[in-house]
Structures are given as structure tokens and as C-alpha cells.
């Protein structure tokens, strides 16, 4: 309030109305509230209509459980389970019972989680949604029991589970019994997972303590809402312990994504759609082709065709393989597959941008796709680290391979890397171990694996993505023990003799095809680029279909034996 020095006043002062006077201006209860992020007043109705998101600053408010269910599931499809589990007070904690009764009254909830069965775009699913209004949705016996029962029933009925976590952690009032809920719920998740079933965990603000350290972090797929606080120890506790201010964004969803713990951050408005997409990718069981008992025999012969090799020097091939206009990993994913959902993170340390991995549909069949990604343009190259994969990239790949195996999805690799990332951090984090583990474990992955070298296949960094039932190459792709520059420098102590090295190394598709390193070479069009790649992707698509058809018929044992022998021969 300012002013009133310049002009004379003329208002006749009438005393303000009495507080109690009827009809006095007053904002009715529940009309306006203050956004705790931007501090501005917001109309409650508007916020509710906007999925509980602040219309001014886009801050996410917590969503009451039943509202959340309504946002996510098909209308009238929710059937609630286990509504009346009797209250217990194991520590006989004073006032706990009254507090719970009070909250039941106020929130109309029985406990801090609502569980049941519903449909999302027609797909049946077991759903659990926590509600922060109820003792910060802390996990006591009833919460743990409801989660365990829901998951057990999902295992029995062979249904996927989706849990929306929102919790301060274990419920202090129930002491050690609360701690046991972490074990109980995790155990239920384990059995559900061993039954080959899908569990999607959605982390909302806040997910901390014993919930983070149990079922919330155990999803096959872990999603989070933007900005959600996710951590084990709460930020205040950490600050007090280390006597340091935590950096901005610490323990937020974006921080976790970067550190490899989330598959994706999904805006609230897209959550239903995203979940439906993921569920669909896990319901489409492989269309059972009529297996004509065709096991054994030379599968590869069907694909064998001598391409017309254009006479060209090895170095010219290398240049083409490295060409800036050459399509990169994501270009192939976009054109060959549909419904691709990218899944991030190695669940240990980081999400490597040099690897794009996820689930997609291929002609109605869910597949796992993992590509080394160089990125587009200088900015893209830098963001993707020029396709040089770090240990966390190999570990992400390993994670997605295990997931593919669990759900019986074939795997398609796209190889395009100058080599594994060469740097201090990479060594600190065990680059060699990560590559070795990928190579080794791939011999045990019980689903068909196809690897396609689309650009540069540099060394062990490439091989970690090329232990497969078949390896294919594009006409001008190269695949070698080392870059020609490196080869020249090691053998002749002269990196500038790369051209001569290339000629010696037998790194072209033609050479490798003749040596039996690759099964198939896919011809390229002239001036091969994003614009002209449709012919190549059409060929690849047909080839992949044939590959799936043939290898899909093999039993796990035979598949692995063939893969073993494929590499045993060299």
C-alpha cells in the first residue's frame, strides 16, 4: 500500500462491517489456497480441474488416492480390495489409535493406501495408490499388509501391478513392525517377479525412507512425477548430519533420472497414457507361429544372399561409416519400430546418453531395442558423447537384457560406436568389467538376439553389443579390432597411416561377410542419409521379421548352444 500524499480525499468513512455481519465479503472456505511453490493464491477448483497442478507455476500438488485412481483407470473399473484390515497398535503407542480414527474421519480413508483391481484402457491391472494425507502415507502394518496381499493376488491371477508410491517412510508409531513391512512387501514383489509378471512403480512427491528402500525401488519399470522428492534419508536429516546445505534439485526426480534410478519422468497429464502403453507392451504375448517342429538345420541359409559389393577402398568405407549425414541409432528405431518407450538408467550410478534402450512393438510383437547413439549435429554428438559408451551404458544394456529375458522379448542391438569411452571416470567405474560382463552374460540370455552394425563397430565397445545369434552389417559400415588410426599407431607407431591400416584390417562388410563374422550385408542407397534410408529400413524390417520367425521357434537350450558355437568357431 502506498500513496495518498498528492490528492485530497473525499471519501466518507463508514466503519467497516462487523466481522460476524452476514453477507460480509469473505472468501468461502476451500475456494482459494496458496501454492506452496510459487506462493500465489490459486483457486482450488481450477487446480483440481488441472490434475492438481498449479496453473501458475506448474507445481505438482499431492493427489488424494481416489482422485488419482480416477485419473488413471477406466471409468467405473476400480474394485477395491482389503478395505477392512483391523487396526493394531503393536507398541501401544499413546494417542496413535485416536490419531488414526481422526484421520479416517477427516480423509474418509481407512488407511494410507488404497488397493484393488482396475482396468487401464481395457487392460486389467492390480493398483495400489498411497495417500499422503494419512500420516504422510507412512508404512505400518496395514499398509504393508495391503500391498503384500495385492501383489500376492496379482501373482495368483497373473496380473501386472502398478503402485503409486508417496510416503514419508516406515511408520514410527508401529516401530519394528513397520520395519518388517519393508521385507514383507519386497518378498511379495520378488515372487511376483519370478512369476514373470510386470510391476511398474510410480514415485510421487515425496517417496522416502523405508518405502524407497523396499517396494518403491523394485519396479521392473520405475517412473516418477516431475520434481518429486525421492530419497532414502530426508534432505533435512542429511543436512543436519553432514552440516552442509544440499544443492538445488538434490533428490528430485530429475536428479534420480540422471543418476540412473528412474526409467522416465512422466508428466501427470500423460501418466495414464504412458501406463497404458507400457501395459500394452507387456500384454501382447508373442503370436504363436505355427511351429513346424523346425529345429536344427542351417537357419542362416534363408537369409544368405550375396550383395553387389561396390568396388571401393577400405578407407572410403571408413569415411562413409563416419559420415556426418549417416543415419544414427534413433533414426532406425523410429522407422523400424512403433510405440517405442525409452527406459533410462543403469540403477547404479547414471544414465548413459550414448545408449538408447527401451521397449517397442515390431509387427505387433514387443521387442527390446538397444542402440548406441551418436546423436545429430555437433550439439547432439556432444550430448551423446559421440556414441562412446560408458560403463553405465553397458550396465543399462545389461539391465534391459535381463528384463527382455524375463518377459520373453527378443532383443535387437544397433551398433554404432568409435569405441568404448576412454576416460578417467570410465576406468574408475570399471569399463573393462562392464564390457566383459555384457559379453559374457549375453551367452546366457534366453531370447533371440540380433545385432546390426549400422556405422562404426569399434572394438570391444562394439562387441559388447554384438554377441548375438546373428550379426548383420550395412554395406558401408565397418567393424574392427580398433580404429585404423589406433591400429597404425600400435603396430607402426604412426597414427597418420590410417588409410594403409584400413586396407589391411579387413574391416569392411564384404571382408567380414566373407570371413563369416557377419551373416548378412544390407545394401545402401547412394548418398545414404536420413532422407534416403527408407529402402534400407524396409529391408531390415523384412529381415528382422524373418529372423524373429526362425529364431523364435528355437528352444532356449538350442538357441544358447547355437550362440555358443557361433563364437566358438573363431
Amino acid at each position, binding site marked *: 500500500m502506498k500513496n495518498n500524499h498528492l490528492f485530497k480525499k473525499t*471519501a466518507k468513512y463508514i466503519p467497516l462491517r462487523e466481522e460476524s455481519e452476514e453477507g460480509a465479503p469473505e*472468501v*468461502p472456505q476451500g475456494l482459494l489456497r496458496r501454492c506452496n511453490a510459487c506462493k500465489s493464491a*490459486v483457486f482450488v477448483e481450477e487446480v483440481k480441474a488441472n490434475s492438481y497442478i498449479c496453473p501458475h507455476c506448474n507445481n505438482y500438488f499431492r493427489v488424494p488416492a481416489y482422485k488419482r485412481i480416477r485419473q488413471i483407470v477406466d471409468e467405473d473399473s476400480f474394485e477395491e480390495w482389503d478395505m477392512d484390515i483391523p487396526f493394531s497398535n503393536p507398541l501401544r503407542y499413546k494417542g496413535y489409535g485416536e490419531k488414526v480414527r481422526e484421520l479416517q474421519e477427516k480423509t474418509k480413508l481407512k488407511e494410507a493406501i488404497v488397493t484393488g483391481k482396475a482396468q487401464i484402457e481395457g487392460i486389467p491391472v492390480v493398483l495400489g495408490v498411497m495417500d499422503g494425507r494419512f500420516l504422510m502415507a507412512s508404512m505400518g502394518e496395514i499398509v504393508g499388509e495391503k500391498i503384500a496381499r495385492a501383489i500376492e493376488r496379482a501373482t495368483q491371477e497373473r496380473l501386472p501391478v502398478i503402485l503409486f508410491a508417496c510416503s514419508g517412510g516406515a511408520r514410527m508409531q508401529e516401530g519394528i513392525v513397520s520395519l518388517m513391512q519393508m521385507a514383507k512387501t519386497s518378498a511379495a514383489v520378488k515372487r511376483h517377479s519370478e512369476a514373470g509378471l510386470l510391476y511398474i512403480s510410480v514415485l510421487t512427491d515425496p517417496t522416502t525412507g523405508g518405502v524407497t528402500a523396499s517396494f518403491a525401488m523394485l519396479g521392473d519399470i520405475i517412473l516418477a512425477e516431475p520434481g518429486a522428492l525421492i530419497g532414502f534419508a530426508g534432505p533435512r536429516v542429511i543436512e543436519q548430519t553432514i552440516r552442509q546445505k544440499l544443492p538445488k534439485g538434490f533428490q528430485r526426480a530429475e536428479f534420480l533420472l540422471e543418476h540412473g534410478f528412474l526409467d522416465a519422468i512422466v508428466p501427470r497429464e500423460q501418466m495414464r497414457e504412458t501406463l497404458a502403453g507400457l501395459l500394452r507392451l507387456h500384454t501382447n504375448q508373442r503370436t504363436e507361429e505355427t511351429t513346424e517342429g523346425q529345429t536344427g538345420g542351417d537357419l542362416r541359409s534363408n537369409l544368405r544372399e550375396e550383395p553387389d559389393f561396390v568396388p571401393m577402398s577400405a578407407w572410403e568405407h571408413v569415411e562413409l561409416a563416419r559420415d556426418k549425414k549417416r543415419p544414427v541409432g534413433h533414426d532406425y528405431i523410429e522407422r523400424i519400430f512403433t510405440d517405442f518407450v525409452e527406459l533410462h538408467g543403469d540403477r547404479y550410478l547414471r544414465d548413459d546418453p550414448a545408449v538408447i534402450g527401451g521397449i517397442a512393438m515390431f509387427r505387433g510383437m514387443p521387442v527390446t531395442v538397444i542402440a548406441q547413439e551418436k546423436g545429430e549435429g555437433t550439439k547432439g554428438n556432444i550430448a551423446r558423447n559421440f556414441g562412446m559408451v560408458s560403463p553405465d551404458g553397458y550396465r543399462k544394456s545389461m539391465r534391459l537384457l535381463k528384463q527382455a529375458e524375463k518377459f520373453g522379448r527378443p532383443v535387437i542391438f544397433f551398433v554404432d560406436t568409435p569405441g568404448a569411452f576412454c576416460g578417467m571416470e570410465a576406468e574408475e567405474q570399471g569399463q573393462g568389467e562392464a564390457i566383459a560382463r555384457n559379453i559374457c552374460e549375453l551367452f546366457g540370455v534366453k531370447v533371440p538376439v540380433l545385432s546390426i552394425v549400422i556405422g562404426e563397430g569399434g572394438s570391444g565397445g562394439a562387441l559388447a553389443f554384438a554377441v548375438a545369434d546373428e550379426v548383420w552389417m550395412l554395406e558401408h559400415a565397418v567393424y574392427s579390432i580398433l580404429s585404423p588410426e589406433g591400429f597404425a599407431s600400435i603396430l607402426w607407431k604412426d597414427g597418420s597411416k590410417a588409410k594403409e591400416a584400413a586396407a589391411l584390417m579387413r574391416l569392411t562388410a564384404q571382408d567380414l561377410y566373407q570371413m563369416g563374422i557377419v551373416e548378412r550385408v544390407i545394401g545402401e542407397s547412394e548418398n545414404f542419409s536420413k532422407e534416403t534410408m527408407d529402402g534400407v529400413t524396409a529391408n531390415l524390417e523384412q529381415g528382422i521379421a524373418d529372423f524373429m520367425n526362425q529364431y523364435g521357434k528355437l528352444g532356449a537350450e538350442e538357441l544358447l548352444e547355437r550362440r555358443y558355437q557361433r563364437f566358438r568357431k573363431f
Partner: protein
Amino acid sequence: MIRKLLIANRGEIAVRIIRACRELGIETVAVYSEADADSLHSELADEAVCIGPGPSTDSYLNMERIMSAAMVTGADAIHPGYGFLSENARFAQICERCNVTFVGPPSQVISSLGNKQAARNTMVAAGVPVIPGTDSPVTDVTEGLALAAKIGYPVIVKAVLGGGGKGMRTAFSGEEFEKAFLTAQKEAQAAFGDNQMYIEHFVEHPRHIEFQILADGMGNVIHLGERDCSIQRKHQKMIEESPSPAVSEALRQKMGEMAVRAAKAAHYVSAGTIEFLLEADERFYFMEMNTRIQVEHPVTEWVTGIDLIKEQIRIASGEPLGIGQDDVQIKGHAIECRINAENPKQNFRPSPGIISTLHLPGGQGIRVDTGIYSGYRIPPYYDSMLAKLIVHGKDRTEAIAKMLSAVGEVIIGGVETNVDYQFEILSDADYQAGDINVDFLKNHEIGGVKIEE
């Protein structure tokens, strides 16, 4: 009675409303954006509350902040002025729910008149003339011909999915119709992949005539005569006058009656405006009803002697109209000129900046409504109107002479304005003869500037 009024607006209209309150002895609360910290309206009010940054969405359109300001200051009423939240039904509804008097019609009325189709239906049902046209799409040319004859020539054929002038043709007779219809239909098919057409009476070179209405909560409705707002550029009015040189006493009675009927049909309360298009042959059609005080309200005030803002406040306080239709006498002639910070030579580009020097006219029969002063900084966020110059003479000739003299006296230094452009319009022979319509500025070159479509 309203004790304390918050003005949810800025500029000259906020000043205008505060002045009315000062005369009525009502306390005033101004709200202002950070860009308006040195504004006249916030200085003139008894209290002023800053409601956020310059952009309107963060301040003058932010209902939460305005309502919070009302609560903090204990205001029991809000006047929305024009623009901003003035015709926002939701805001009116929020005021109602918070027991704050909204100086304007009930939210329900705003929302039903805001829906063009619903408003048109209400008017048709009440017997208020609307532009005749087909109720449903037409695809057959023979059927179209019959409908066109019924509607009355000239007609305009419009593509149902049309826009940007494509698939639109006029026909002035039955002979022309077939070609016009088929050409438009062909164009529509090519442009929108759809050949459904509407046929509507083509209102050629109409005047924009609007009637001022006052309606109280007891169902009393009167009109205060018309305003002729035909001088406009791209639907932006530039000069308004009352009475219209094209409206005879008999026509005024006829149109006024329709305006009252329209307001009654809409269950209107408060001051409002019914817009009509008037053709040369005196046929007229309802266009829309504005549920706010209008920029050009002073010309009506001057010829009728009624203070429209005070009437709005009285009606909002629940008082009945103090006057009947018979008490309304149109005396003399009033003209309003809008003075804008814009450059007519550069397609009327807005010209924000600091007003370095300022001289405004005065004297007998001259009124200036403005929020600017010497040294005032024009913020870039809002519309470019700086001042309204209103004159009153015993007849149109005297009013024009007065306006020419007054406009000729205006000096605004530091920014570009349309003052010279307005002077040229007023000097135009056709304007002086009262020969104007909504296409005037498109058909006349004014000071070397011609408005393109």
C-alpha cells in the same frame, strides 16, 4: 450501499471510476501492476495494492490476486472497467461466491451473452432482428437460390469450414447467385475438402450503431439513445458520436425499443450496450450485447446528462433506476476521439515510451478522460490508448468544429500518436457531411494513410 470499491483496471477508466466514487463518497482501492507503480489511478485512489508484474496475465487478469487484494483491503465491491476481467463470467461468479458486489450483470447473464449462438437464439426468440441466413448448411445450388431469395439480396455465400476469405462470394441478384455459389463451393471443396455452405444476407457498408442500456434489478430497462461508432480500423473504434447523423427520431424509437427488448430477453442488469449493424435503407440487425461499461460511454453521458458509472454503482447497490424512458432527452451532439500512442504511418504500430511534454485542451464543452501526465512512462504491456477527448456542441457542426479545435491543441511529446491522423479524419468532407460507415477508413485516404483490409 457500496462502502469501499476496488477498481480492477488501470488507465483512464480506473481514473474515471475513482472520480465517480470520490463524488459519491465511496472509498476506493486501486490495484496496479509493477509497471503501473507511478500511475495516476493508483495515486488517486484512497488505497492501492500492487498485484504483480507488468504482463496482464500476472496482474490485471489474475483473479486470485485481485480477490486477495479485495479481502486484504476489505473492499465490498469490484468494478472491472472494460477489457481485462470485465466480461469474464467466472470472475463475476467468484465475486458472487465471495459476497463481493460485482459492478456489472450477474455471472449467468455474462456467460449466456458471451455465447454468440445462444445470444442470437435468445434474440430471435424475443423478436429482435438478426442478420437473416440459413439455419443449416446448403450444398445444392437450386436449394440455395430459393433460400437466397427468401433471405433477400445482396447475400454472401460462406463455406461452413471457411476462413481467411476463402470460399466466400457475394451475389447482388438471383442472376449472380448461381455463379457465386458454385465458385465459392468449388473453392471450399479445394481449400477445406468440404462443400457445405451457409447463405447469409450481405450487410453492405453498414454503420456500427450501438444503444446504451440501463437496467436495474427490478426489471426496469431504459435506453439512452445510440452511439455511432462507424469510424473504426480493423474493428478498433477511433471516433464515436451521439446521436448518429443517420438515425432519425423515429428510427431511434424503433431501435431503442428493440434494444430494450433485447436487454429484457437477456435478463440484463447494469449498464450495457446492444450493438446493431444499420444499413442505408434503415434495416438493422442485432450483432451482440456488451456486458460492460464501454470506452465511448462519455458521449452518451454528455447528450443525456446521466453519469453512467454512478448509475452502474447505484444499480449494483441494489437501487432502482431513478429515471424512466421519458426522462431521457438527447441534447446537442457529442463526439469522442481516442488518442493512442501509435504510429499511423507504420501500420499503427504501438509507440510506448516517456511522455516528455504534454498539453491537453480544455474550455467550454471539452472533456478529457486520461491517466497520463507529463513525465508519464507508457508501459509496453497494455493497449495504446492514452486519452479520450470528448466535446459537446449544440449540433454536429458545432461539435466537429470544437473537436477540430481541441485536437489541434493536443501536444504529446516523446511518443508517436494518432493526433494528426484524427485531425485529418475530422477534416474530411465526407466525415463532416456525416457520410460514414464501417468501411470509411478503408475507402478514404487519411493524411496519406489508407487502411488495407
